[in-house]
């Protein structure tokens, strides 16, 4: 019953599983994102206050959500690798970090593009944008720590620990940035989230969210294949896998 779990520790099995899963994820992601884009950008009614500018939410909110999701995946995979000494966990963590950083960057860019018509400026020190920016710094720290070591195994473990420390800190940072705004009584800005959202706006958003998750899964699987091949480049099965 637990054999599938043990198989996750074996590089050739992870490689073939990732190769088999990637196209499925990609295909389903195309459906989810395709429906979400068409329904969100074309069919959803314009917002009564923000007009058409609100439509960037269909990219912004899913990427902001995925930036946290990818960080959690990275930290949990690193923790598993650290505790049970499953090396493939480090491969997952290393594959997940750049994707998560890209989602974070995407969320920041779309957020500031949305800010231009709404706030009149590309960058306001909105608490959500600020904590997203700090998340980007956390990603940068983990990624550069991993590559800073000459011994890759040591870099993996150091990055895994930093990922876990960061995961504990993410909620602290998020809430302190939220409260910081209330401490300073900064400019009151419009929030993206509205208490009620009609279904014609909500369903495309959920579809985009699901599509982004599947897309993340597809990219993660593809990157994971590369990570496994690079880590196992001395192994015999890699030569056989490449030649076949």
């Amino acid at each position, binding site marked *: 019953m637990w054999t599938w779990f043990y198989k996750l520790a074996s590089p050739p099995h992870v490689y073939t599983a990732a190769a088999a899963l990637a196209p499925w994820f990609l295909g389903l992601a195309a459906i989810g994102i395709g429906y979400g884009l068409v329904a969100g950008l074309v069919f959803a009614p314009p917002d009564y206050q923000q007009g058409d500018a609100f439509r960037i939410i269909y990219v912004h909110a899913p990427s902001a959500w995925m930036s946290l999701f990818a960080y959690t995946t990275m930290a949990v995979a690193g923790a598993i690798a*650290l505790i049970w000494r499953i090396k493939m966990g480090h491969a997952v963590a290393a594959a997940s970090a750049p994707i998560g950083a890209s989602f974070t960057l995407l969320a920041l860019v779309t957020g500031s593009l949305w800010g231009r018509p709404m706030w009149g400026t590309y960058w306001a020190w909105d608490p959500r944008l600020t904590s997203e920016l*700090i998340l980007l*710094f*956390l990603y*940068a*720290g983990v990624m*550069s*720590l991993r590559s*800073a*070591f000459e011994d890759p195994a*040591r870099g993996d*473990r*150091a990055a895994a*620990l*930093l990922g*876990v*420390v*960061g995961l*504990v*800190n993410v909620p*602290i*940072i998020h809430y*302190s*940035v939220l*409260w*910081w705004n209330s*401490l*300073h009584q900064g400019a009151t800005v419009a929030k993206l989230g509205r208490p009620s959202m009609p279904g014609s706006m909500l369903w495309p958003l959920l579809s985009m969210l699901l599509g982004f998750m599947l897309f993340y899964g597809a990219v993660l699987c593809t990157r994971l294949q590369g990570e496994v091949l690079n880590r196992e480049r001395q192994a015999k099965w890699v030569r056989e896998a490449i030649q076949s």
Partner: protein
Amino acid sequence: MKVGAWGAMILVVRRELCLSFRRPDQLLQPLVFFLIVTTLFPLGLTLQLSLLRDMAPGVLWVAALLSSLLSLDSLFKSDADDGTLEQLALCGQGLTVIVVAKTFAHWLVSGAALVLVSPVVATALGIPVGAFSIMMLSLGLGTLTLSWLGAIGAALTVGLRRGNVLLSLIVLPLAMPLLIFGAGATDRAISGVSPAGALYFLAALCVFTCTLAPFAATVALRITLE
């Protein structure tokens, strides 16, 4: 001679303090850095004391964070380079005890010293004397928390040749809540509002990191030392 955990801790703290006071220049450098950075802000921003006072908490806290970071690099490095740290790890007391003692000693010579110097800087930035006690309390809590966060970072980068920049990259994002609540408490003390909320948060963060960070730093040291 058999020594308990407390005994070992006191011995390590004494050793660290002794070593620091034999190199007084290294002890003073972060404090001088603190003074210089706070001097830069009035020169770059404005000379008007009334305007400076509005920015003073932020300036003070940013300078304090940076100067504490400066001295963090040496927390484990010299001991790791000459093998002392490995000997301490093997002494039978558990590495956590050593980490706690070293970090606490580091806070005494960097953070606590910075708290003692801060009134001078605060006067220059136009912070009223009435806010000094809150400012020093918040700085004390903040630098202690930062020492713990920094211990994790220093332990992770101890084996690296140029770990100093990386250390800042790792520790500064984690330290941002400290800046928010620390500067917030000082700001409120200056404007005469009760700073209790921000101080409670600082204290909570301090207790939280004091309890968890030693273990994280120990794991980090084991990763980089082995």
